[in-house]
């Protein structure tokens, strides 16, 4: 294998556990040379695990001075080490970009020597791309915790998105697996960048040509299932971070066992908690786009999300008093609370009912999950049923008819035992 190919293998492999790949949110324009950022983002391909490949996601190096138990690049792990040169990263990015393989670069790094030294090296790549190659495509840069504010501030002028990973959802969890790290060193730079974003925004209202500063905002990631936090704890942390730092995204990454030495972590070979991860994302969406409050979905009485049903359905089953909702009269906010009805379907219903009362056969075709929704809504031709069915009965009926991903996941686990 050629050396550059081997480096790419090692450093892409080490970077892949960061799930963020989004290339959205930036509107960087091409100024006559190469590249622009597509506001909606583009996934150029998908791996066999079904994850989107939008950016060339690599580490500058997997040499690291830290020894975090959950991380594949930890100091004590016996893996091959490699480091790209600045020129190599720039050449790869430009050649992949010009062939339309990627939307841009996602650059992270193990910490070598110290934070500033690492951050400064990352900056050299970013600046070379922007200033020498005149590249206007997407760049996502990991903020290195502990790097100086001058460096972070300068980086923000060249990149589209910055992120720092929380790693474990709570400080207690983090200390268990990474004693050298703490949440404070994540919060500080997140807050600093957020302040800068706001300052630049305020300034751009007064002055016409204010440079863009991290136009696609910040994100973070939490590893799920490595440490024993409940879903309530996880979502509480996410909510706080969305509020305090105006994050664009919080990513939840089901832990993939990679450590044979640490007995606190799930054993190598056990399946990553993919359904749980999916449920957390669904909850995240309900909070951000469906106007749910966290305590409606998760609260001290109900600390874990159901794995067999989605969180909106779970909420509806616990709150039968709000149903059925009449889709011909209810407002948008009520309609999006019907399990199986998304925002787009709700908009279609609102628009279409101006032309006449809607019947079941019509809403069925609009793309709603009728199997779930039918128990919670009333259409023009829905027969009136006296009394309310028990929610346990409703749940069973839905599960029986719904043999999609939940059941296949269960049978997968069972089969893998043999």
């Amino acid at each position, binding site marked *: 294998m050629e050396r550059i190919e081997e480096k790419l293998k090692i450093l892409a492999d080490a970077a*892949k556990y960061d799930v963020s790949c989004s290339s959205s949110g930036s509107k960087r324009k091409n100024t006559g040379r190469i590249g622009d950022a597509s506001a909606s983002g*583009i996934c150029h391909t*998908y*791996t*066999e*695990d*079904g994850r989107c490949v939008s950016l060339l996601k690599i580490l500058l190096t997997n040499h690291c001075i830290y020894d975090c138990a959950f991380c594949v690049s930890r100091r004590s792990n016996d893996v091959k080490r490699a480091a790209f040169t600045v020129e190599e990263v720039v050449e790869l990015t430009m050649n992949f970009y010009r062939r339309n*393989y990627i939307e841009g670069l996602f650059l992270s790094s193990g910490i070598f020597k110290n934070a500033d030294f690492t951050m400064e090296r990352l900056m050299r790549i970013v600046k070379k791309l922007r200033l020498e190659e005149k590249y206007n495509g997407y760049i996502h840069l990991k903020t290195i915790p502990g790097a100086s504010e001058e460096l972070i501030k300068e980086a923000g002028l060249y990149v589209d998105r910055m992120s720092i990973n929380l790693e474990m959802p709570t400080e207690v969890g983090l200390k268990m697996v990474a004693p050298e790290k703490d949440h404070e060193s994540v919060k500080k730079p997140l807050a600093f960048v957020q302040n800068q974003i706001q300052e630049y925004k305020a300034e751009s209202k007064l002055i016409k040509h204010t440079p863009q500063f991290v136009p696609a905002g910040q994100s973070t990631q939490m590893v799920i299932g490595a440490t024993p936090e409940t879903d309530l704890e996880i979502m509480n942390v996410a909510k706080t971070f969305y509020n305090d730092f105006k994050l664009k995204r919080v990513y939840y990454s089901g832990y993939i066992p990679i450590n044979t030495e640490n007995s606190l972590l799930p054993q190598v070979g056990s399946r990553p908690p993919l359904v749980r991860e999916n449920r957390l994302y669904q909850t995240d969406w309900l909070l951000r786009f469906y106007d749910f409050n966290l305590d409606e979905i998760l609260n001290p009485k109900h600390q874990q999300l159901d794995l067999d049903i989605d969180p909106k359905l779970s909420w509806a089953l616990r709150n039968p008093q709000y149903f059925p909702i009449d889709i011909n009269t209810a407002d948008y906010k009520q309609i999006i609370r019907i399990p199986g009805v998304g925002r787009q379907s709700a908009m279609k219903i609102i628009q*279409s009912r101006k*032309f006449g009362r809607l019947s079941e056969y019509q809403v069925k075709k609009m793309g709603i999950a009728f199997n779930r929704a039918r128990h919670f809504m009333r259409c023009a031709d829905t027969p009136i049923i006296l009394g309310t069915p028990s929610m346990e009965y409703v749940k069973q009926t839905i599960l029986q008819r719904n043999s999609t991903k939940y059941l296949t996941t269960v049978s997968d686990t069972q089969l893998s035992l043999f």
Partner: protein
Amino acid sequence: MQYIFDGTYNGFLCCVFEYFEYKDSNVQLQVEGDDATQTFLFDSDKSIITDLVKAKRVQTGLQKHLGKSIAMDFFRVFLSEDRKAWAASFNIICQIFSGKTNILGNYGSEEVLYFKQTLKKVSRERHRMKAFIRFSRSSDGMFFAVIEPDFNVLPLITTFFKNRYADQKWLIYDVKRKYGLLYDKENVMEVKLSPEEKHALTTDTVITLDEKDEHFQNLWKRYYQSTNIEARRNMKLHLQYVPKRYWKYLVEKQV
């Protein structure tokens, strides 16, 4: 009554013009050369001549009623090449000009729903082409790509590629519809290739690739493999996102 037109969007718009000029009843659209045309040819059928002035008037009218971007939706749906969607579009346009300007919000109507669903399919294909096009670099510095999209979406992605790759010459060729777009660093023009040129483009035998092109293709394949997490393998989802019919032109899917 059947309107037989030439299968172009302008021809389609002229059918609308014809309808409002003569108020024919029960109009069906037919394309010259479609199989059915011969079998159902009656005396009362009309051959619609494409007249750019008339087409422009209909298009302007649509823009006036709906705004520029929604008026574009009819062009987008037309690119689906789906005759049923064309029929739905025709009826919807006729109703819009008859005063029902907000009819596009009526998802309860079969025709509107079909129109919107087709629009979504075309948009999805347009988005996929932005994502799935893979350029190869020839030795003279031209970046070229071959595509075979489900719908005729080339016109919808021109601006995107022109803006993004402003400093490189590129050619995107649709083998299914036998035409391509060529960008010379200034303008985009439509090109039809001679059979020999087409052969060269699709077989890699005649066009000499840049000496480093294979190198970067290999690196890209290597990256694609390394970024996969085996423990999360989910082929069902993978195939949903990257249906097999696209694999032929995806570098990372070539063994």
